[in-house]
């Protein structure tokens, strides 16, 4: 069972208190975008066996959206961070590097 610490209310919440929200840091494309960009925004997803970044919502708690970094192979959680950012904070990236040297995810590493 996954347990995340909500970066807003500080509570350790397990999955039953949370709702998964899919891949993090998606770049959104809307009207005016090319078909390819729009299609890829809608459907293409990172699907790594290893380090992954996601959006979660503390739905049965404070209700806030937040970000999480975790491993899809071991379910290990590297950390959670605010939703108001376009990329993972350095501190989270460093934590991952300690445990998974040489990791990369999209343009981040």
């Amino acid at each position, binding site marked *: 069972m996954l347990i995340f610490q909500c970066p807003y209310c500080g509570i350790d919440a397990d999955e039953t208190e949370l709702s998964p929200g899919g891949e993090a840091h998606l770049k959104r494309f809307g009207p005016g975008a090319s078909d390819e960009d729009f299609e890829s925004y*809608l459907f293409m997803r990172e699907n790594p*066996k290893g380090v992954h970044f996601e959006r979660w919502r503390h739905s049965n708690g404070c209700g806030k959206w937040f970000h999480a970094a975790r491993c*899809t*192979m071991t379910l290990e959680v590297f950390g959670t961070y605010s939703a108001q950012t376009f990329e993972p904070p350095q501190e989270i990236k460093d934590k991952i590097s300690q445990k998974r040297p040489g990791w990369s995810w999209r343009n981040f590493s």
Partner: protein
Amino acid sequence: MKRYSAFAIAREAYRHHKGWERAWRNPEPKQKYDVIIVGAGGHGLATAYYLGRNFGITNVAVIEKGWLGGGNTGRNTTIIRSNYLQDPSAAIYEKSRSLYETLSQDLNYNIMFSPRGVMMLAQTQHEIRGYQRTVHANALQGVKTEFIGPKRVKELCPIINLDGPRYPVLGALWQSRGGTARHDAVAWGYARACSDMGMDIIQQCEVTGIDKENGKVTGVQTSKGAIACEKLGLVVAGHSGVLADMAGFRLPVESVALQALVSEPIKPCMDVVVMANTVHGYMSQSDKGEMVIGGGADGFNNYTQRGSFHHVEETVRALVETFPMISRLKMLRWWGGIVDMTGDRSPILSKTPLENCFINCGWGDWRVQGNPWVGLGYGRIDGQGSFPANRRVFNVALQRGQIYRRKRRSRSGALMEGTCKSLILQRPVQISHNPLNACERLLVNVEAGSC
């Protein structure tokens, strides 16, 4: 290959059963094959089988990182049905279901196909309307289904509780020729037939890289060394993303855990398959007497082959209302499989940007029942590098591609609107979400939300 028959059993009985031969060889890889299939699940093996049987291509290796049939093929709840609303889905799954009827004879291997009947409960007014619509669609598609009332449900499945209170049974979509098959036996039967045709099934051999030259595939790197090939088929279900990464393209697929569990064996008490989509649980009784129970998939990416406990709890809690007797059962085993889900739950059978490399994935949680057909169709893609335009089911699917082509000519705003709507309504999305080439992608609309 010595054929299995009643005579063979009698003969072996006289010989103290010393004359049985191994069902398949366990060869070391050759340096090169015409075709390499990655993944010895039901789909990979069926692909190899029909490549050999229908196209005479037998210089084939099926490469498997674990043991054959150890992926989702050996982890599912074995239900086979074709009661789908959309034409392409109904066509594919009905063709597949009908192939299952004679697959044991075809393979000379008892796959224990048991068309015991599949019942999908209507537990809301909305479901009644939905299933009545499906029955009408099935009538036009030539799939035999009917809508039955609660009384008939109770006759067919006496252990059911019709009265709720939360989820009363209001009727059911009944497919009398749906049922189950022994999933392992499906893989084993195909494997035996493939091996007999001279194909190599190479187990405990993980593909770790894909070799290419000038945009063309030339072979694979494996834990048993490099193996060259002319054509490569990726049929790895939950690991499609990993293999696509090696080949250098992206997929609209996410891997999530889907779970099932079985109870202790009990006396025969239920001889149909019952599915309850509102509460997301389904149940059948295995030949050993275990109650086989499946539920919903987790909502997040996962490669661990075990799902979240609370999902099981939810499934069982909901089923207990409809089947009060299972509250006393002890559950014996519980497991998960990694299923490859596309955004619109439509599978992908396609060429890829890497020439001579093909992919079959995105069947998510409903593929066992698609096994024979997909093998048949996909074998054709691998074998001839082209889609079998002469197959009716493929034609239907190809028309979807044409719809997409037409749509693409319109302004992107219109396209966008159509797509969003489809997603919101949870209707099959008619836009290809293949990274590759939309027209080459076979779009098969599996109803979103069917478990």
